[in-house]
């Protein structure tokens, strides 16, 4: 029997695996990912999300989540019955309901250690800038005060300060390595002591850690246990010369209480890259000279993004080949 052949006679091209994207994807990310995957972009459809999902996404097996914004939980998972992987390009996954995913056998991958060096660097930068007043001193020079008024007030020495790290994971341990070279003795609070770091002192709770530290570094994940882990009692224990550096999530700190403690001099200063309700920054902080603020940029370097995208591609490739993913989130 004669069959109708295609006139162009092109060879069959293997289809790229489909990956759903619900957030707006920037040109750089799209440029790196689209050679490998068929990106199904919800925001380019005129359909509202629920309709888009039910119409186009019943067979979607992988979802890419970039910015750690929004909530990805049961109601979404229910609309993606074939989903097997949520690949995140962030380190934190507090916006993903990891429990709901596990119940449905949906793997979740994150940025692994790709952001770690930049996060650790930014932490040290914030700390030096707070203690040595670099940002305010830079302003002092630029507004002519050095000429008009004279010498800038003295800062506080970084080297040798007792550093307490809340969460001695990838970022925390990299911060510890850097600050050790500044002669800072390192202590930490973590769910359990870390036998790999015998020279760092373990404390079983944050209050004791704060009491014995001059600086608290927050580098743990945001979970139900760690929400508001830095409260007034911890800040009182840290003391009037104490400094908090937060590169984790804003909600690790009781933010209104932090503002009060800074105003009242309960603690000495803070370096904050994250806030409870970004991009909102508590107005009172914006007038304080003993704080250094940044716009959640601890990890936004081309080097990090390149590495994170390579890892995301590797996770997706492994998943689509039936192999174990590379950077699964540990619960």
């Amino acid at each position, binding site marked *: 029997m004669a069959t109708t052949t295609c006139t162009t006679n092109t060879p069959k091209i293997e289809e790229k695996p489909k990956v759903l994207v619900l957030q*707006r994807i920037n040109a750089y990310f799209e440029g790196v990912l689209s050679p490998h995957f068929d990106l199904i972009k919800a925001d380019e459809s005129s359909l509202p999300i629920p309709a888009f999902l039910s119409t186009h996404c019943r067979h979607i097996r992988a979802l890419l989540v970039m*910015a750690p*914004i929004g909530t990805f939980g049961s109601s979404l998972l229910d609309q993606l019955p074939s989903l097997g992987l949520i690949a995140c390009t962030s380190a934190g996954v507090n916006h993903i309901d990891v429990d709901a995913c596990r119940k449905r056998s949906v793997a979740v991958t994150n940025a692994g250690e790709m952001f770690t*060096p*930049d996060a*650790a*660097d*930014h932490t*040290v*930068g*914030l700390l*030096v*800038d707070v*203690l*040595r*007043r*670099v*940002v305010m*001193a*830079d*302003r*002092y*020079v*630029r507004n002519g005060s*050095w*000429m008009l008024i*004279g*010498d*800038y007030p*003295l*800062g*506080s*020495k*970084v*080297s*040798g300060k007792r550093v307490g790290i809340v969460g001695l994971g990838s970022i925390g341990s990299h911060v510890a*390595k*850097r600050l*050790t*070279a*500044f*002669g800072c003795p390192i202590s930490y609070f973590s769910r359990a002591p870390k036998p790999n770091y015998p020279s760092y002192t373990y404390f079983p709770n944050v209050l004791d850690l704060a009491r014995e530290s001059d600086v608290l570094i927050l580098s743990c994940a945001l979970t139900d246990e760690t929400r508001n882990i830095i409260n007034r009692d911890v800040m009182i224990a840290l003391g009037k010369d104490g400094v908090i550096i937060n590169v984790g999530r804003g909600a690790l700190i009781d933010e209104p209480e932090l503002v009060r403690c800074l105003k009242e001099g309960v603690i000495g200063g803070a370096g904050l890259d994250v806030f409870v309700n*970004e*991009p909102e*920054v508590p107005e009172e*902080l*914006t007038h304080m000279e003993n704080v*250094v*603020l*940044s*716009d*959640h*940029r601890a990890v*936004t*370097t*081309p*080097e*990090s*993004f390149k590495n994170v995208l390579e890892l995301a591609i590797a996770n997706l490739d492994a998943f689509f080949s039936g192999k174990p993913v590379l950077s699964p989130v540990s619960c």
Partner: protein
Amino acid sequence: MDKIGVLVTHKPLPYLEQELTRRGCRLFRLWESPESCRLEFCRENSSEIRAIVGNSNFGADAATIDALPKLEIVASFSVGLDKVDLPKCKERGIRVTNTPDVLTDDVADLAIGLTISVMRRIPSADKYARSGAWKKGEYTLTTRFSGKRVGILGLGRIGLAIAKRAEAFDCPISYYSRSEKPHPNYTYYSTPVDLASNCDILVVACALTEETRHIVNRAVIDALGPKGVLINIGRGPHVDEPELVAALVEGRLGGAGLDVFENEPHVPEELFALDNVVLVPHVASATIETRTAMADLVLGNLEAHFLKKPLLTAVV
């Protein structure tokens, strides 16, 4: 040190002033005279002045030394002695002391802090976060510090302390020095241009002498290039400042963190509009802890001299 006349060239740390007074010194406050009257002030009080406490802005130049025939010791509140006429002191038998070691950590801390602040644009991040202009989901790309090649001009105490810290960021270390040092992990380059050609971040950490004046010149700046960053925690005159400013304004140099300037407290205004520079007012040793330790060294050296004991940190 009862009744010993001490010329203090700059407004001192309150602790230092209190301690000198408590020990019976008679203080002559040079900074309170207008510049044009200072030599005259010295001459008027020359019968009493036996010691000078100088700093990085005003030490003891030839004219001042000549105006003080009873001068026995210059105790500098600094480690750098570029403002002290050392040959003249040697000639006159005047002792000279400085404050090494106690400020090494602070200076090295600031060098690294300035580097991260420049590369990650922390001052402009701070300004942006306070401004209300930060929009949800927006982020600014800045350059990674970890792993970048750090080149150090001068591998003395401060240079080594900077190297030690930068190593913890996995930065390969290279240096220029008058001669190679026994540090096999650090790569030696025999000229500043070679060093600048082979690093991403160039840190000035050597003493200011006639040989090192303008050690960072147009050729070095060109070699460092449009992605390179210069960090100066040495002395302003180490760098050809007009060349530096032009290179930054024109984008031929990637960024700079500057603690010192050729004519402090004047800072070239063209730099004020740039967000790839961080400018601080000569604060590398400006912490309570370190300035107190420096004061203790000055006091200790003065006391030792007038009690005819060995000096603590004599250079001459």
